[in-house]
């Protein structure tokens, strides 16, 4: 893995993302929707707080910003990412195939690993920017919330959401290596991520090992630990494994192109 080649790919990809409308459009959409979600949750909380205050003399100390606004906001970001991440990745390899540049990329000294990792890093940088900007809304609560929320769960929640986003990115990137049609790539990766998102739904009715299995593979379940402020080694492994799976699959599918 040579850093020079890796950086050449990453830099070109970042260039393509920011010189064309893609980055701005996707980022704008994501930030608008996440702001809407945040506003919604905060308004509900605000209203509920006042209603509660109107009804009873003693303040309800269990109603706090962390539980009612920030946690639920982070969970909604995960759902939002299910739809936004494929928008970023759908052109990643499909476009290269369509316009013939994949033939160039696979006949130069850059290895397929460097190619996949390079694209992943470029998209990860964009994703990091997007996530950081969307974490700004809960950050505002520290300045104007009284009492201010607990910072530790917010920090761990932010990291957890970003890890989850990275895992989604890796899986969606792998899906884009299959087809030269961007729409097919986008829809198939959206379907995959959505399936992963809802996979824990039948858990309770299954019970026993089935329930545990579904919970363990569910990103919603794994990220909820981070959002609650309970950071675990196993959930870190989960996200890292997903990232590795996505990248490995992408490399294999591209290499298989040579053998077709």
């Amino acid at each position: 893995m040579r850093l020079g080649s890796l950086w050449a790919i990453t830099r070109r990809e970042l260039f393509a993302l920011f010189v064309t409308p893609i980055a701005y459009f996707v980022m704008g959409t994501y930030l608008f929707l996440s702001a809407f979600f945040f506003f919604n949750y905060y308004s509900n909380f605000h209203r509920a707080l006042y209603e509660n205050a109107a009804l009873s003399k003693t303040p309800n100390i269990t109603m706090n910003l962390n539980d009612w606004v920030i946690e639920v906001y982070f969970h909604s970001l995960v759902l939002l990412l299910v739809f936004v991440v494929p928008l970023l990745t759908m052109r990643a390899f499909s476009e290269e195939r369509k316009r013939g540049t994949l033939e160039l990329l696979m006949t130069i000294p850059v290895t397929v690993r460097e190619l996949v990792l390079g694209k992943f890093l470029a998209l990860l940088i964009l994703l990091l920017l997007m996530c950081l900007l969307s974490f700004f809304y809960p950050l505002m609560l520290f300045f104007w919330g009284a009492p201010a929320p607990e910072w530790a769960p917010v920090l761990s929640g932010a990291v957890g959401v970003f890890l989850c986003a990275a895992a989604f990115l890796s899986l969606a990137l792998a899906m884009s290596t299959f087809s030269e049609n961007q729409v097919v790539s986008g829809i198939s990766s959206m379907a995959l991520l959505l399936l992963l998102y809802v996979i824990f739904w039948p858990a309770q009715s299954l019970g026993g090992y089935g329930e545990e299995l579904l919970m363990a593979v569910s990103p919603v379940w794994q990220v909820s630990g981070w959002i609650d402020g309970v950071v675990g080694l196993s959930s870190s492994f989960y996200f890292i494994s997903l990232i590795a799976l996505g990248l490995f699959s992408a490399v294999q599918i591209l290499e298989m192109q040579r053998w077709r």
Partner: protein
Amino acid sequence: MSAGDGVEKDLPVVEMSGVGKRFGAFAAVKGVTFSAQRGDIIGLLGINGAGKTTTLRMLATYLIPTSGSICISGFDTVKEGEEVRRRIGYLPETPPLYDEMTVLEYLAFVASAREIKKTERKDAVESILERCGLVEVRHRLCRHLSRGYRQRAGLAQAIIHAPEVIILDEPTGGLDPQQVIQIRRLILSLAHDRVLILSTHILPEVTMVCNRVLIMHAGSLVLDQGLAQLTDEQSLEKAFLRCIGTDVEAVSA
């Protein structure tokens, strides 16, 4: 076989042995064997569907042969693909350009991806721009390039690192006569002391540029001869028509 660097002058630079490629049941290439030395300018002729592009893609390591082996500069294209890719320049049928980049940005990217040292990159890009006649369009987006300029930019990316083997797939496809002459001149200027393989179905191109002819038909290599030797005996057109099984007398009447 891995000879590494310092391949002697008399060892072939390109060696294809019994190479075949099947796509499912369809055999696009069957049992192609040839070798090329430094200084060979090979014209790969054949009608559409003869297997030229597949052969070139295997040489360029974009495809892996289903049978046989290919060695370039002593490196096997399957086992030592990375080493091979350092030593080749490949222009596919469609020039692989990034529409959102300018010609300059594109070539700068190719230069860094082809491992040209950072200190030498600027000079390499400048000299290739001049050599390929791209100076006046250096700041133009690839999206806005005409067909002729696109071919030239594609050619520029294939030769910017001065490779030992240059592989061109129909480099004059869709160009007007003036552009064709310009590309041919450019190709002739490249030929010294390296192997150049270009595919075409335009016979005059081969007589003007190449010194060796390979004719493919239905996936097989049916003729491999020096151009001078061939044209001594018969016209290239007659040889070609004979190879593809057309009744020569009926056509030339």
